[in-house]
């Protein structure tokens, strides 16, 4: 997991490990480097402060007393962030689907127009199918729906291979559509607003009050 919280926590753990190694030398009645210990202590203090800030950003009233509480808190925060992220992803997919559904493709050749509109329909279908998943593991690259087609139709294979490859992997139909499309062919429509369903709390473990930590 690479959330900021966990990152900050990982860094904190590294600095504390440096301190512990010096303490182990003390425990073995061996001499140790005071400078190194001081540096480790300083870093640990810094990372701990960062973590506290991150946590308080997510949850200003968060408190914890020990490491376990901290980890639990971070987990909760991560879950919430994940849900939030899922919601955001879903919304984006649905908005793009509505955007593509509101407009139409016009080609000078009727058959070509029909084919392109078919591809558009497949893309919309795929976007809405992905948005219906509970876990939004795939994130639609690009800007918002209103600027997305413009951004997508300007992608170059030579300069944006990763994006096109991601689209190709995660949203294949959408990628075929934009591969056939020209921005001049598109005739936008009036997008319907997206109704976002409430988040599903199945994956969020509720935190009881007694387990809720208090940050120092």
């Amino acid at each position, binding site marked *: 997991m690479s959330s900021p919280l966990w990152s900050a926590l990982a860094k904190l753990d590294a600095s504390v490990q440096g301190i512990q190694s010096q*303490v182990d030398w003390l425990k*073995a009645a061996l001499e140790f480097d005071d400078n190194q210990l001081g540096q480790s202590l300083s870093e640990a203090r810094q990372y701990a402060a960062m973590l506290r800030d991150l946590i308080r950003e997510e949850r200003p009233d968060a408190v914890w007393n020990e490491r376990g509480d901290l980890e639990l808190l971070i987990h909760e925060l991560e879950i919430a962030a994940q849900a939030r992220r899922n919601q955001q992803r879903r919304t984006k997919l649905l908005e793009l689907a509505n955007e593509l559904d509101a407009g139409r493709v016009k080609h000078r050749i009727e058959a070509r127009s029909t084919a392109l509109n078919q591809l558009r329909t497949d893309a919309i279908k795929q976007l809405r199918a992905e948005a219906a998943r509970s876990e939004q593991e795939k994130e639609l690259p690009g800007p918002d729906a209103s600027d997305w087609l413009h951004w997508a139709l300007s992608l170059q294979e030579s300069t944006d291979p990763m994006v096109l490859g991601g689209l190709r992997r995660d949203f294949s139909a959408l990628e075929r559509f934009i591969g056939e499309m020209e921005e001049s062919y598109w005739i936008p429509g009036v997008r319907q607003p997206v109704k976002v369903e409430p988040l599903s709390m199945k994956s969020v473990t509720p935190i009881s009050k007694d387990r809720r930590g208090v940050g120092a």
Partner: protein
Amino acid sequence: MSSPISSALESLDGSLQAIAAQVGRLRAGLDVDDAQLNHGLTNARRNAAAVRDLIRSEQPTAAWKDRGTLDQLIRELEVAAQQKKNQQRAVRLLELAAELDAGHVKHRVEARANALNGLRADAVKELRTKGSAPQQDKELPGPDASEWLHWACNLQEESDAESLETLHNDFPALEGFIAEMEENYWVAGQRQPVSVPQAAMSAKPETVASVAARAPEPDRGPQIVPRPQPQKPAAAAAFAETPNVQERPAAESKPSAPAPRRDATPGWQAAAVAVAREPEPAPTPAAPPKKYCDKCDTEYPGQFNVCPIHGTSLSAVSAPSGAQARQKGNLAATAAAAVAEPRASAAAAATAPKTVTAPEAPAAPKAKQSIAEVVKEAPKSAKEAKKDNKQQAQAKDTKDTKPQTKENKGGAVAVQEPPAPPEAVAETKSGVTGRAEELWGEHGSKLTSNPIVLAVAGLVLFGVLVAVVIMLMHRHSATTPAKPVESSAPVQAPSTAPATPNQAAPASAAPAPATASNSQPDQSKQQNQNQNAANKAAADANANAKQNNAPKEVLNLPTPNPGANKRQEAANDASEMPSSIPGALPGTSGSVGDVVKGIPVSVPSIAGQKVRISSGVAQAQLLKQIPPQYPSQARQQRVQGAVVLQALIDKDGRVASVHVVSGHPMLTKAAMEAVKQWRYRPFSVDGEPVEADTQIKVNFTLGTE
């Protein structure tokens, strides 16, 4: 674990806990207390340094990498320390066992000594058993083995309860031994060196970490070098070597009560000396059986071998019948001789039993001489003369315990001290008188029944009286005062026998010059004649004194006899010479003393002045003579010799003043005290009592033991 290293490690862990708490807060993303964290770090550093120092003090080359190796190293060090402690404990136990085994207990009661030695053996066994154990969980309290018994015997129930309890719980046999012991029972010995058993020296296998750091140790434990034994005093060593208590001289014997256990005593060595010096009661030597003189049947203590009077050897068996008979015969002979003329007395003596011993023989002439001197010199009353004779006869008694005087050529009073401690009773005059009476009672009847003997005796007596009267009259008629003869004529002691008639005439010539006669024209001539006579008499007296001194046997005072007191009292009660003299003519008083008393003794008329008289003359005038007490200190130190005193006799015949001319300081006081009590017949010049200055010589002589 309570070793110093473990304690330091625990302190280190404690300080690290404080650090760990702060680090935990950090790890939880919490704020930390910098002050507490720094304090914890400081303590941890200090404790870590202490651990390092302790380890390196035990093992300078020790090295470790982490806490695990450190723990292992500490375990090894503690095992070694425990082994060392075990070894030390074992050595202490074994050393004490050796100390107790080397010595032994001595008690005046053998059964008690055996019991104590049994307890000692049990204690030794217990100590050795426990000392040989591989694990020494119990530590013996107290000091080193050399001082341990002294410490243990001074433990108090109140102040040393802990030590006593430890001993009771851990070393019951040893505790039982010291509970019964007294310090002065203990006779220390030479402790053998102790070797620690192998079991106490077993070591665990060493780890890699400690092998490089530890110095190679021998397979066996270190050999215990016996500590140098302290030098024991010679007395203690001698005592230890000569356990026979009886060999010590009796002079060192003291009461056998042992020193109290709880008393603070000096070191163990001093206690050993005290034990040596304070002997157990030596069996008092059996008092030697009493011995008796074959001649006089005088009883002497066992240590006497020779009769001081007769010079004969003493025997353990008393021969009262024979000795007493001889004694009575002697007394009869001397009594008869005292009242007879010199020639007649010789014949009478010849008829008397011929068992007069040598000491008595010279004593008899001396007695006769003294009596003759008294008769010739001064006027005496019959009663006083009898007293003199009685005194002289009683002084001859060998059972007199007081120092007796004897006449010697120097005119001194010889004080003879018997070898045994004299009793206070002096049997002198009354004893002789009593025996004389006894003898007279036995034999006198036979003599008085013989008319020839009676006639001869009467004639002899008459002749003597006439001679004495004539001599006195000659002296009395002299007008010139005779110079006092300052000769050291022997002072007649009360112990001397009555003078024999042979000695009477010359002895009587020695005294003071006769009083002045009434005829003045011839006074000077008479005085010169008297002076010459006096000088001659003095010379004769000296010769007699020499003769009397010829036998070297001195008149040693015998040991006191239980009957002496009674005889002395009897003599004092009698206070007179034998009331009758055998062969006395009817009508006479029968007493020489009566005759003598009637003859005045006077000195040349130097009225109102002090006259100097010779000691012999003074002796003749002696009415009461108290023999001096031989000082005990002088007797103990074997001090003897003559004390010469200058005495002033007042007009009443008392010794007004005495001062020492010469003599041992230990003896002078006794001599002076005795002489001060003497009484003389008053000296007179022309009928006027005068003071007399004379010298008195008192001899203190110790008899042979």
